[in-house]
């Protein structure tokens, strides 16, 4: 009887620990939906493009969303614009130099102004962004939606989903991409819209 009670207590504690534990979400999307939209709006030209080569892992605790940590990686070569010449220029050593710098990364380190309402958490996430061989600390407003047990509806496997959305701006000059040059065609300020979903299997 004593042993059974003890076992029950241990199982209960383990269960509580498991429920409260942060969940690791994998952002390599088999459906290829995850994307980043980039926009430059210069006096002479407006360029919009997308990037879809996204991977990375984020640790998210539904009971403590402010403790979010993780790294998102974008393959530089996945950046796409409709005009083939513009795309060639974008990938070349004159601009992003995708051969030398194949990855663009953002590593989340801390979150402030965390507000949670239901499954949705908004926060200002600070982390290190690496682009074109330069790493800078940036803060971006992020919206995270925790979709418990929704992975099955998407892939047929038991698990949770975490949808992350962020809209923010960076300056290409901060990352050593042709600073002060051709700003009439490619603005210094680049708008980034991130829409990604990560999966965590049970």
């Amino acid at each position, binding site marked *: 009887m004593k042993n059974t009670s003890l076992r029950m207590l241990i199982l209960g504690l383990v269960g509580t620990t498991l429920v409260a534990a942060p969940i690791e979400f994998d952002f390599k999307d088999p*459906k*290829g*939906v*995850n*994307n980043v939209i980039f926009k430059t709006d210069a006096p002479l030209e407006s360029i919009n493009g*997308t990037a*879809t080569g996204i991977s990375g892992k984020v640790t998210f605790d539904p009971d403590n969303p402010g403790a979010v940590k993780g790294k998102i990686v974008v393959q530089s070569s996945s950046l*796409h614009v*409709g*005009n*083939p*010449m*513009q795309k060639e220029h974008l990938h070349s050593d004159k601009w992003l130099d995708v051969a030398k710098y194949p990855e663009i990364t953002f590593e989340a380190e801390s979150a402030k102004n965390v507000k949670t309402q239901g499954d949705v958490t908004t926060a200002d996430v600070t982390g290190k962004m690496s682009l074109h061989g330069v790493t800078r600390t940036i803060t971006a407003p992020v919206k995270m939606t925790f*979709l418990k047990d*929704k992975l099955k*509806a*998407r892939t047929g496997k038991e698990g949770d*989903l975490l*949808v992350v959305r962020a809209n923010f701006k960076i300056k290409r000059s901060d990352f050593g991409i042709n600073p002060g040059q051709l700003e009439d065609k490619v603005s210094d300020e680049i708008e980034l819209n991130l*829409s*990604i*979903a990560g999966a965590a299997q049970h």
Partner: protein
Amino acid sequence: MRKFLQTVAVGLAAASLLVWLALGSNVIWTRTSVTKWQKDPVTEIEGPVIEKKFVPGIDLLVLGLAGALALFVGSVFVSKTENKSIGSS
């Protein structure tokens, strides 16, 4: 010869304009792909689907019109040369 080149020039200008107008009269650069957006019903994320499609832009129209103009201007010189050689023989 002059008339032939001028006809080609006018034809090229008209064809460039018609193709540009017919395929959307886009005032952007020429594209070889278009991005369509597809919404994921579970995550509600709109993901890009890139399709190969030729979309002529303003650059192609300008190129066509410039080519037509060059032909038209060139036709004047070609005809003069021909007239001279005919006259001297």
